[in-house]
């Protein structure tokens, strides 16, 4: 090794970036109200088709939480009038098509990627799926049982458990956001085929459907296939449903979920954030990149690289139509749970109180600006980006403006966004960990009143004795 340590060598300087624009796309509309968005991309002989329906989990009727996700999965697994779920799967997979059907909070989507030579056959199959689902009872019962198995597994899965219970403690008890997207033991057990069929009939309607096609295909050909498959589908437009996004509490709270002998604590700290189409989306997004969104963010550098407390620590906002959670997530060795929480709190306080350094801002903006083309290498990523436009009603030039908007962020704008949208007084902390170790540490920390729960989220013991709050902030 003949390394010269005296003075660092000069870094290579980049040439001019080559121009890039988000794939051009075209919108068309069928007479029955179906919207078609086509992005022709001819790199490889592949096409992704995503069919969006206004049938996300926020549409679950009260007491039947989980119905949207069950309905979405059953579109494929429950078979169609012509063939059962097994045959249906085989018909797609013998074409080599990868297909999945799922619902998130805001929409349901059937997404398929196939070689372009098989597209016409796959398109006809998709029409059968969307227009004539059979929801066979046997498959309804099976998927309910699989959801119950998932919920059972969650009891010993600290990451999933922490996420799930964080939402429960964050939102108003009657908010849809307070209960899991896929429903819980109480709600799923009562769901039956008739309810799912009714949900389908109310929510899967041409007027609420968007077909997104990205890949090796022309807009005319995509329209021709769409008309053949969906042109005669009659029906109206579902009413838009929005979730209640009010917080459960405006005071801080600490929620310990007991997992005896856990070698690590899964830690979540946050509060209700802002909706996706909030005017402050850009400054909040860039602020979050500095705080905990990037590998070199303050929170990750502090907890991982300075202290070695964790394998990783990140913050983020879950972007939904209504305000999703803002949350800092990490897993730390049990005996430093308090120290890790203190560092997280101090980073949230700091970004609210002081301007970020110019090089912190420029790291975040030049990353978000530069990485933009890398986000859209695949047909499925392009289709997903177009789905964001549809779900959140963003303008067609959103992606063309994106990089300019990011470059326009200022230090003052970031400080203002942090000050306006981070709320240290109402932070909720969830810890899945060993209560014997964690409880005394968090008592000492004085973050807020502490409640102890079992792995189902049921409070342990009687009324919690009031804890002296010595504000760590």
């Amino acid at each position, binding site marked *: 090794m003949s390394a010269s340590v005296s003075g660092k060598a000069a870094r290579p300087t980049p040439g001019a970036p*080559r121009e890039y624009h988000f794939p051009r796309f075209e919108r068309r509309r069928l007479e029955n109200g179906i919207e078609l968005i086509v992005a022709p991309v001819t790199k490889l002989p592949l096409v992704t088709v995503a069919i969006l329906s206004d049938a996300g989990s926020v549409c679950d009727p009260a007491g039947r939480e989980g119905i949207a996700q069950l309905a979405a999965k059953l579109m494929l697994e429950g078979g169609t009038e012509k063939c059962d779920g097994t045959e249906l799967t085989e018909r797609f997979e*013998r*074409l080599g098509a990868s297909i999945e059907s799922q619902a998130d909070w805001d929409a349901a989507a059937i997404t398929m990627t196939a070689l372009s030579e098989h597209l016409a056959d796959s398109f006809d199959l998709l029409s059968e799926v969307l227009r004539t689902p059979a929801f066979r009872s046997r498959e309804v019962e099976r998927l309910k049982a699989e959801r119950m198995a998932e919920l059972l597994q969650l009891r010993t899965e600290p990451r999933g458990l922490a996420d799930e219970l964080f939402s429960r403690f964050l939102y108003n008890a009657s908010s849809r956001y307070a209960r899991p997207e896929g429903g819980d033991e109480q709600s799923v057990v009562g769901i039956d085929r008739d309810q799912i069929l009714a949900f389908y009939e109310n929510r899967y309607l041409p007027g609420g459907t968007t077909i997104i096609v990205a890949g090796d295909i022309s807009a005319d050909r995509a329209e021709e296939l769409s008309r053949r498959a969906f042109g005669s589908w009659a029906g109206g437009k579902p009413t838009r449903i929005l979730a209640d996004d009010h917080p459960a509490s405006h005071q801080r709270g600490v929620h310990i979920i007991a997992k005896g002998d856990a070698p690590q604590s899964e830690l979540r700290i946050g509060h209700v954030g802002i909706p996706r189409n909030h005017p402050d989306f850009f400054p909040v997004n860039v602020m979050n990149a500095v705080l905990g969104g990037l590998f070199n963010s303050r929170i990750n550098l502090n907890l991982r690289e300075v202290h070695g407390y964790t*394998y990783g620590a990140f913050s983020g906002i879950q972007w939904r139509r209504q305000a999703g959670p803002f949350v800092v997530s990490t897993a730390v060795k049990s005996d430093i749970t308090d120290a890790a929480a203190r560092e997280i709190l101090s980073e949230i306080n700091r970004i609210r109180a002081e301007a970020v350094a110019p090089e912190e801002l420029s790291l975040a903006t030049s*990353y978000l600006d530069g*990485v933009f083309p890398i986000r859209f290498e*695949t047909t499925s990523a392009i289709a997903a980006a177009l789905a964001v436009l549809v779900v959140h009603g963003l303008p067609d030039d959103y992606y063309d403006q994106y990089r300019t908007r990011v470059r326009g962020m200022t230090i003052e704008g970031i400080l203002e966004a942090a000050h306006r949208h981070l709320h240290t007084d109402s932070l909720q902390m969830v810890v899945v960990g060993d209560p014997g170790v964690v409880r005394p540490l968090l008592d000492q920390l004085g973050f807020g009143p502490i409640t102890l729960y079992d792995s189902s989220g049921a409070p342990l013991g009687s009324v919690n004795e009031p804890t002296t709050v010595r504000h760590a902030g």
Partner: protein
Amino acid sequence: MRIPIDTFSLPNGLFVTLSEDHTAPIVAVNLWYHVGSANERPGRTGFAHLFEHMLFQGSADVEANEHFELVQRAGGTLNGSTWLERTNYFETVPSNQLELALWLEANRMGKLLPAMTQQKLDTQRDVVMNERRWSMDNQPYGTWMEKLPALCFPVEHPFNHSLMGSMDDLTAASLDDVAQFFATYYTPDNAVLSIAGDFDPGEAHRLIEKHFGDIPRGAGKPPLPDMSLPPVFGQWKREVVPDDVMLPRLFLAFRSPAFGTEKYYAASVCGAVLGLRNGSRLRRRLVRERQIAADASAFTYDLAKGSDLLVVDATARPGVSAERLEQEVAHEIDTIVRDGIEAAEVERAVAVIQTSFVSALQEAGERADRLSLFATYFRAPELVNEEVNRYQAVTVEHVNDFIRERLGENNRASLLYVAREETPVELANASAAVATP
């Protein structure tokens, strides 16, 4: 479909593969070092992976954590990973930042040691211990990653020990170990560099010579012991693991032909027939029809030396006992050993594999990684263009031959997770009786 491939070597032994694609202003740089956990010496398990962390801690001209900072500031994505037979480092950047990525990789290949400190090692050791807790110790079934290879490979075999390493060994790792490992394995003649995407080949060639050309060749690495193994285990090896889990889960492994061999493709298709996607046999039979399992899948480790593993992974439905889960999975395997599988199942599997493969190649990073893979293991990156043909050449007869040869009772290893308080006595005894090291 075929991707263009160009290769050359530098005098210091660095093997380079290039694949141009100008559809977007993106370029991927991907470096494979032919060293993994298999190269670790006794008492230093987990070292290859700990070392991977150290490679992000700066080099002579790069400050600690600056590697991440420079790539992200350039608008790039990056990471590294450690496997049994190799360690890789990769970044995808805007194409005008190609030189930055090459310079960073060359700086740490040529000048890592001046930047190494005890404090950096101590911090990364803590990070890795937390990674171990996060991915294995505090995760239901998480220990399968080290228990399955331990069950399937003889104790002295290089694939036997834990990739993540034991806490004791991680604690014992010293700066001297870092220096020695670096000098032995992180040399240009033990590395493959691949570039895929939007670049000019002449310019790339010039930049590679400029940044990597002066790095000296290594002194050679100690040879791995003979890694060949008999084609079958010779018995049904069993281990029962009581864990903090709610549902039993079975990993059923079969010794299978090494990655890249002709017979590997039959094994890989067999894995897809059994457990790739919803139309696979185990999903259809155990999840959908008989409702024994909440989930079922199958995969291969893709080990290129000695012998590979084909693994079936099935989780019980609530109410299905661990014994029943194992019996029912075994029954499905016994059925195909007796009756074989159908041609239509092979067609489905190959069609699904082909679409996934083409889909993956949309990303520059994936192209570069696959080029590095075939270049590292076989010095033949052009094999990436043979993948689809090799899968399409697999017939139902090939798969059924593989099934008869390798899926019998004399070639099974089962790792069965059971709820801690519900370990059935006979299973615990069975496990003790065939106690594996």
